């Protein structure tokens, strides 16, 4: 059917990968509906879509994890059955997953060898790791233990592992969600270099600016179908977002910056040792949030955000009562229930098993944190009818898609559960709301609704703290923000005066820059 190596000779080059009419059904869901797109050799192709648009399903079929119900995948023009990831790798398809599968206690080299089908001689492999990592600007010491590495460095391990197999197509799933802006820039240089050498890159992301910067073409998925194909350079971020969502994107309406109110949440010198072995200790964190203010805490994942959130919500106690004050009342030694009584509500990052109990119904999950503030108890007894009303109120107000309030929390999709948890805390009319990753895994429409709800809450005089790794989100909704890095919180800055570069450098701190700052980013060195 096709002659090998016809790329250069044919008028229109044979695509490296061509997806034709691919359909995949799951019980009750049509995940992919006759999806067509093609990736040319050396092309950086974006796959853009909301959560649940079918990106992951599509990519899993390309990588052989799932198999299409209908339609075909053509590799260099030849129709293929890709049985499993092993077969995909044999063809030359490499994939860097969003969540790394690394063994923390092992070295970089051992981790790379474990993920390969035929690692071969270790000394030789070590040489190759060094060569590849240098050639593509991914500095990596094969003998370092993984737990000592930053997230950015860990991602490099995954990328190098793919590159060692000489891939022809590299799939990157949300690669920048854990990186600082500087690390993102470095990653893009590597990807551009790979593309220049003829490697096709399938780049999955929801960050529109990045796609504009990096990608040659973009395929936009919505509800399992291809709704548009475009050249990102010709589009604006807003126009792509509209194609992705299908409706006009709402911008968050903020009241004009008024007079800042009283300080509602004051944290002075919060120091907490992490409960985890390789966790990050909080060191002398201080900040104050006033009534009507949205305060952002930026930072790369794993820099003490979890510890900070536990310390604020009351799940971990401070050393002294005076370390944390809610509306002037000292609460450093009060637990989460007592702080909630004082008016501090919190939304943790992890939903299942932390913000909600997956095996319990939505009604029970409404009781979980709302029992006091919503008056759901009469002495020891739970007021079942009142609890059901509260749960229904959350479901209605925050458009939680569920068959009913007696459905278990675990049966909801991540985004819907997030809406439920955020709604549950907001409807309790808190005085202080601490939210971690408010829109993690939530589709753009719901994210806008949550942002609006936070803005409305602030307008009512609530002090809102938003901890997020999504800098765009923080820049869009916060009044002031600070950056957390290795457990130290920077001084706060006004969001409208902050520059992305400045925040990026604060986020980078020691991480990622230490080993290679001198080589690639001389400017990072003299700012730090």
């Amino acid at each position: 059917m096709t002659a090998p190596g016809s790329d250069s000779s044919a008028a229109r080059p044979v695509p490296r990968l061509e997806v034709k009419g691919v359909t995949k059904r799951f019980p009750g869901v049509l995940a992919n509906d006759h999806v067509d797109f093609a990736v040319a050799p050396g092309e950086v192709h974006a796959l853009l879509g909301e959560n649940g648009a079918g990106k992951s399903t599509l990519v899993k079929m390309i990588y052989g994890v799932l198999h299409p119900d209908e339609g075909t995948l053509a590799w260099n023009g030849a129709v293929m059955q890709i049985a499993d990831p092993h077969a995909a790798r044999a063809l030359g398809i490499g994939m860097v997953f969003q969540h790394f599968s690394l063994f923390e206690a092992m070295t970089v080299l051992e981790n790379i060898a474990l993920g390969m089908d035929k690692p071969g001689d270790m000394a030789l492999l070590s040489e190759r790791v060094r060569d590849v990592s240098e050639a593509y600007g991914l500095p990596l010491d094969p003998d370092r233990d993984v737990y000592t590495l930053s997230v950015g460095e860990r991602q490099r391990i995954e990328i190098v592992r793919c590159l060692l197999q000489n891939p022809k197509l590299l799939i990157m799933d949300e690669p920048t969600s854990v990186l600082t802006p500087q690390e993102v820039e470095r990653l893009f240089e590597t990807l551009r270099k790979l593309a220049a050498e003829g490697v096709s890159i399938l780049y999955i992301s929801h960050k529109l600016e990045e796609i504009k910067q990096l990608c040659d073409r973009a395929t936009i998925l919505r509800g399992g179908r291809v709704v548009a194909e475009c050249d990102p350079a010709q589009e604006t971020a807003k126009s792509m977002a509209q194609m992705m969502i299908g409706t006009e994107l709402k911008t968050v309406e903020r009241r004009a910056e008024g007079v800042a109110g009283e300080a509602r949440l004051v944290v002075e010198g919060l120091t907490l040792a992490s409960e985890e072995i390789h966790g990050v200790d909080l060191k002398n964190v201080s900040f104050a949030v006033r009534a009507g203010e949205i305060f952002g805490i930026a930072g790369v994942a794993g820099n003490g955000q979890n510890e900070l959130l536990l310390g604020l919500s009351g799940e971990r106690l401070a050393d002294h009562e005076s370390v944390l004050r809610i509306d002037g009342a000292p609460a450093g030694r009060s637990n989460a229930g007592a702080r909630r009584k004082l008016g501090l509500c919190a939304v943790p990052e992890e939903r299942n098993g932390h913000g909600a109990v997956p095996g319990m119904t939505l009604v029970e999950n409404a009781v979980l944190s709302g029992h006091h503030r919503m008056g759901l108890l009469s002495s020891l007894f739970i007021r079942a009818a009142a609890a059901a009303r509260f749960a229904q109120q959350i479901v209605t107000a925050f458009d939680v898609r569920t068959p009913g309030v007696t459905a278990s929390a675990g049966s909801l999709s991540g985004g819907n559960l997030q809406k439920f948890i955020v709604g549950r805390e907001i409807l309790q009319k808190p005085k202080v709301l601490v939210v971690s990753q408010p829109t993690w895994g939530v589709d753009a429409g719901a994210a806008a609704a949550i942002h609006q709800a936070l803005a409305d809450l602030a307008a009512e005089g609530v002090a809102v703290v938003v901890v997020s790794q999504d800098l765009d989100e923080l820049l869009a909704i916060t009044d002031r923000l600070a950056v957390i890095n290795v457990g130290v919180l920077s001084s706060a800055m006004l969001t409208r005066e902050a520059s992305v570069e400045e925040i990026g450098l604060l986020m980078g701190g020691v991480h990622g820059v230490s080993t290679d700052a001198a080589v690639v980013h001389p400017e990072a060195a003299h700012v730090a």
Partner: protein
Amino acid sequence: MSHNPGAAGNRLVVYSVFNPASWKIEPRREIPQGLLYATPLLAVVLTVVAGFFIFLSMGYNPFLALYHFFVSPLLTLYGLSELLVKAGPLIMIGVGLAVGFRANVWNIGAEGQLTLGAITGGVIALAFWNEETWWTLPLMCLCAVGGGAAYAAIPAFLRTRFNVNEILTSLMLTYVATLFLSTLVYGPLKDPMGFNFPQSRMFGDAALLPILLEGTRLHLGGVVALMIAVAVWVLMTFTIVGFQVRVLGQAPAAARYAGFSGRRIVWFCLLLSGGLAGLAGTFEVAGPIGQLVPVISPGYGFTAIIVAFLGRLHPLGIILSGLVMALSYIGGENAQVQVGLPQAVTGVFQGLLLFFLLASDFLVRYRVRRNPAALRHAPQAQPAE
């Protein structure tokens, strides 16, 4: 286009059916709710079937043995009353343990707490021996609950203060308790008129539980056990206390997030289960036994663990499972008398029941599938024509 790996691949698969590596166990995405409640019944049926073959291989008439084990005890009023006598302590203890198990608090030492409760209650009975007062029995019950709870407080303290595993401490304390009881009945509490037998005086009438049915041993304890089961059901289903217990068991991080104190729940669970076990202990000595003897329980504290799981950790389910397990005691004794089966048959049946329950539970939550990796032998990425 060829979709399947072809004949050669199929042959390889057939051979690999016998290779353990070609199977894998994976959690089910959705657990069939009906099956969850059917498994206790399934376990009982499988136990009976297994018992049939055990009796057969031992050379007994399996039909006769099973009849005397499971059916004939239920045909007389006396048999039925005995069933309730045995089921009472099992239900009472099982209900308390189930609350703890729901919160991932594993009190394995109910037998010891039962013994302590029997001692504290029994000491009151002996201290006021020969005094006909209405308050003897209530005071005994109070002290029994206190004794059992105090004994369970030791593992509770060790767990909450030093993070010591309560499974080990509560189990070890059981043996301490039975030895302590022996020390007492061989020593200070020995009946002065008892010809040096290791047993206390018979309790006075004021210290004995009223008999509900003339001519049987059926005493008030059975009714109290039922009331406790219902009360615990209300506690677990409708109150914030039960809610806290369930949240802690299912998602400890969520419990902390909600502001529920894990320590307090651990204390609550151990004190409750210990107190109920203690009460069951005193009901034994103030009911069927009537005095303190070196051994006061045929392992009720341990059997109640099976009762709790067989009843799905649900107080009302535990009433049913308590009756089933009580039957295994009575049936075992009956089969010893009628068919000459060995005494160990009761323990074997209880073990079988737990085994089948856990096994069928496992298969409800997980399923066994052929490992896709076993298909690796088949050619992988084939170009179709």
